[in-house]
């Protein structure tokens, strides 16, 4: 391996010597704005030796980098913004659904048809129109509005532009800002 004591300007860009360089495009690195020619500051042989040396060190660690990349991808993918949005809305939606179901059950229990009204011999449940009191209706309305606000917040975070329009179609009485 030949190496000189004196700095040896080279016609070969060090970028081209480095197989790991993410910016191998010679147009982006060899003659950059600012007037510096990287090859004039380099020593291709020594730089290649350094790159090889660090690569050897890395492989000598005994770590399987492909397996590591797979593990890392798996562990981090759920943290991507869109995934977080989805899981939050999923979680939020299931909470809202559970709350609505609970309200419904309470309402049925409180205001459903009295057991005396149904014939005892009949095992069939006869549904009757349910008139919910104003307080429960107000609570459910509040819950729905809260859900809408949360959805809107998440959609804004994710940059969904036409979400307002979707909401407007779902809740025509709401004050949404649909541009289309």
């Amino acid at each position: 391996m030949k190496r000189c004591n004196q700095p040896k300007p080279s016609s070969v860009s060090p970028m081209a010597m480095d197989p790991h360089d993410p910016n191998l495009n010679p147009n982006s690195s060899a003659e950059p704005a600012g007037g510096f020619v990287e090859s004039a500051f380099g020593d291709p042989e020594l730089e290649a030796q350094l790159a090889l040396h660090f690569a050897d060190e890395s492989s000598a660690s005994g770590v399987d980098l492909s397996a590591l990349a797979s593990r890392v991808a798996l562990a981090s993918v759920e943290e991507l913004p869109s995934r977080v949005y989805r899981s939050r809305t999923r979680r939020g939606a299931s909470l809202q659904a559970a709350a609505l179901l609970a309200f419904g059950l309470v309402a049925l229990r409180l205001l459903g048809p009295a057991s005396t009204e149904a014939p005892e011999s009949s095992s069939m449940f006869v549904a009757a129109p349910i008139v919910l009191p104003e307080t429960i209706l107000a609570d459910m309305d509040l819950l729905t509005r809260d859900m809408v606000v949360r959805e809107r917040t998440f959609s804004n975070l994710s940059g969904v532009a036409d979400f307002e329009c979707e909401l407007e179609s779902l809740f025509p009485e709401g004050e949404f800002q649909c541009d289309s």
Partner: protein
Amino acid sequence: MPDSLEEPDFRRLVASARWGDDHAWRVLVEHWTPRLFAFLHSRCRDPELSEELVQDVFVKVAQRLADYDERGRFSSWIMLITINRLRDEMRRRSRHARPVENETLGALAGSTQADAEGGPAAEESRRALDGALRSLSDAERELLHLRHAVGLSFSDISELLREPRGTLLARHHRVLGKLRVVLAPHDPKNPQEPNGPADEEGGRA
């Protein structure tokens, strides 16, 4: 593993990953994992810690992907997160941290892989390079790690370290000069007699 990704590719992949494209995210992770690991391992000399930090960095990158400003370079951005994470960890473990200079260098230089891949001359060369790297300051080593372990361009390093590119080029040139001086006695084709403490005649031709 994609080896020829450039900054525009990173931007495109980041944009896709933001919208939940698993494949784009995997490509980014596969491209950067060996580079981050090489950098972290060269800095802390601890494979397990390096693995752990690589994972932490990607979790952090994924969490912050929505905040990534596409006007900046992705390479600089991810390396900044990596360096900050490493510094945080080193501060946290300061009492137990393993300094770069004193640990495992000898073991690495004398690894069986070195013997297998290049014979005694190559091993001697690696050992000499280890010694030469140890003679550099931490900032000088960091520059070499960023440039040759990660493969960053000088433009990336300039944005990352917030130093003018010309300054970095000049420093890099000086560092290579220092290495050449330290390595000169180990050069088999150099007629100069060895005089360094690490010189061993056994590996010479």
